[in-house]
């Protein structure tokens, strides 16, 4: 047992910090810290900076232009970038599709798509969920019918995050109705500018159109955009889901959120003294901080095992549940901390470049929106109910 990082890891951390200090634009970290909505260009700017250093694709092997980091190095990267207020790396191309193409894509597909992910030519989005399917991803109803050199795709995807920015979408489509539901699924890459595609925003609880519905009406997709074999898409889909789960706990986000909460609680006054000195509010912060201290170590245990080559199993489910519960509690406390100034719903002022004068202290405005937005954490990516069932069945053998 040893809780310390190795000297090499500490050196990497120092290198990262120096890099962030010099290269992370303050304009971006200010936006992240104040909870402003990031524009597409903001993400692209940050991606390009990281790509210039070879650090955009931490989990990709060097041969494909990635950094080739192990789980601990990726963890350190996550810790340092969230602490510095860097924008998150949009995961759809980099964390999700990339590994699938590297493992199951043809050489041509790899050579064509991977560089475009790194240099930002293509903004990818995800076409997994369908209306009414919930956590039952295998009940794919969107169909792709082979006609000559093309598939003709019809159907609908939903909950497509940032689909409004996307050039490309990777989709699960049904190519056969034979056998079990899992058996007739294929994995298809589709150009978002194809005729017949329509994107409709879904406004969420926080008033933001973060996710979308994507409709496919006789969309023609060249057969070379099929990844792997026809009807084997479920295998690739599962690989994608389980591949990049080391950050499932969201420790970095939780730490940043806790720091923000404490900052606010130091500034707010209640009963004539800083809110953070109110014994009951301080105790609630303490409870979540203590839980986070433990969860961060659970996360490191999983990271460390992953770096040693062990595949995380149901531990991911435990981290998912506890991690989301902790982040949601921090969000709730932050909303509570800002007091009556949680009420203004001026979400337009959260937009990049808005000139509207903020209402109340600058830290107050994003609190309610973030609270509502992060209710999604326990719903998406396999709801916490699904995770509990996985834990009960696999670890507890119930």
């Amino acid at each position, binding site marked *: 047992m040893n809780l310390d990082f190795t000297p090499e890891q500490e050196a990497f951390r120092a290198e990262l910090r120096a890099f962030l200090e010099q290269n992370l634009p303050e304009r971006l970290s200010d936006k992240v810290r104040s909870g402003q909505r990031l524009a597409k260009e903001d993400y692209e700017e940050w991606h390009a900076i990281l790509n210039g250093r070879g650090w955009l694709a931490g989990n990709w092997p060097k041969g494909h232009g990635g950094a080739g980091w192990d789980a601990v190095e990726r963890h350190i990267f996550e810790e340092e970038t969230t602490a510095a207020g860097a924008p998150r790396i949009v995961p759809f191309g980099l964390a999700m599709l990339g590994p699938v193409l590297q493992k199951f894509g043809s050489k041509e597909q790899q050579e064509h798509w991977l560089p475009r992910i790194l240099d930002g030519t293509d903004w990818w989005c995800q076409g997994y969920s369908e209306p009414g399917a919930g956590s039952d991803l295998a009940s794919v109803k969107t169909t792709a019918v082979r006609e000559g050199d093309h598939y003709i795709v019809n159907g609908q995807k939903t909950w497509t995050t940032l689909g409004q920015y996307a050039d490309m979408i990777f989709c699960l489509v049904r190519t056969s109705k034979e056998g079990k539901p899992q058996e007739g699924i294929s994995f298809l890459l589709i150009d978002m500018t194809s005729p017949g595609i329509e994107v409709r925003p879904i406004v969420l609880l926080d008033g933001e159109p973060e996710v979308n519905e994507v409709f496919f009406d006789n969309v023609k997709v060249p057969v070379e955009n099929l990844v792997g074999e026809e009807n084997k898409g479920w295998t690739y889909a599962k690989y994608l889901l389980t591949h990049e789960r080391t950050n499932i706990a969201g420790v970095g986000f939780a730490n940043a959120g806790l720091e923000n909460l404490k900052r606010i609680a130091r500034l707010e006054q209640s009963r004539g003294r800083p809110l953070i000195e109110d*014994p009951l509010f301080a105790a609630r912060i303490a409870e979540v901080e203590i839980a986070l201290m433990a969860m961060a170590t659970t996360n490191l245990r999983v990271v460390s095992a992953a770096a040693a080559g062990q595949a995380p199993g149901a531990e991911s489910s435990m981290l998912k549940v506890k991690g989301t519960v902790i982040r949601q509690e921090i969000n709730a406390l932050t909303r509570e901390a800002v*007091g009556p100034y*949680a009420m*203004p719903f001026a979400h337009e002022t959260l937009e990049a470049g808005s000139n509207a004068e903020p209402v109340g202290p600058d830290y107050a405005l994003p609190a309610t929106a973030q609270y509502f937005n992060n*209710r999604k954490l326990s*719903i998406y990516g396999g709801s916490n109910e699904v995770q509990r069932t996985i834990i009960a069945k696999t670890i507890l053998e119930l």
Partner: protein
Amino acid sequence: MNFDLTEERQMLQDGLRRYLVQAANPQSRAAAVEAEAAVDPELWGGLAEMGVIGALFTEEQGGFGGAGFDLAVVFEELGRAGAVTPLLEVVLAGGLLAQAGDAHADLLGEVIAGTRALAYAHGEPASRYDLSRVETTARREGDDYVIDGRKAVVVGGAQADMLVLSARTSGERDDAGGISLFAVPADSAGLQWRDYPLADGGRAAELVIDGLRAGSGSLLGAEGGAHDAIEYAQARGTAALCAEALGLMEAARALTADYLRTRKQFGQPIGKFQALQHRMADMLIEIEQARSAVINLCGRLQLSRREREINVSATKQLVGRVARHVTEEAIQMHGGIGMTEEYELAHLARRLTMTDHRLGDSTYHLGRFVALGAVA
């Protein structure tokens, strides 16, 4: 001991429920949001006509109700319908007008008739939930008071005709003594509004007060002695707000139970899954707790200050805690659809969540319950 509604209140409840089903629909809400109005004028007119505003006041005050349980009936129905109105402002500001006596009877009459809109301008940018933290000052100049300061999150402020405004005429920042109340037109010179939308679907404004002149006739009650009246008005406001939260919870619960009965996954309605059944049962139990807490407060508004305020804090603490539980569970059990603005739950969830940010949140009132000597 009797927990049944009187016949009058039962009629009010039935009528209001029927009316709100058609009048407080999402379209009327959307129109009000679009118009940057504090309330859909048609809805407000309808409520006044039904006597709903009058139900908040006693006969002596020109109404025909005014008891805690009148507030409860009205606000529970508003909550159930997810209605967006500045009726709570009428309880707060109108209650203070009524307490100040006959001098303001005409104004109050117009309020009850629905022809004059009131706002309650008490909270300040740094006061949070502390009732006696008033930094806005009013100093005598001849027969007038000159008022300077800021007020925060004045609900319906920019849309109001008249304000009930607190200011300090003496004492230090946190003193209970020295707070005075004024009734002033919302368009007075010296008032500067910054209007914005609220997460609960209504509107509020930040108010900068710069050299506002208020005649001595605008003073409500005795100079410097407004603290107890404000506390009493807020006690009634808390009863109303908690009853509204109760109605919102009932609506969220009904929506969720419906969803669980109809939505199928893995071949059966998800309401057949035992884990969700048990969580729904817990939600129901907690809502019944909230209902009893509302009854406790509404039935004790007329008791001694200590007994009343202990119930204010007990009820607000419990309702705040339960509201969060119900909101989060309702969203979670819905899954993705519960996250979308288009679905009715979003509106209920936002309103419910915001009730904890008015008149003191659940942590605040837990501490206050202890400070009032309830645990000793």
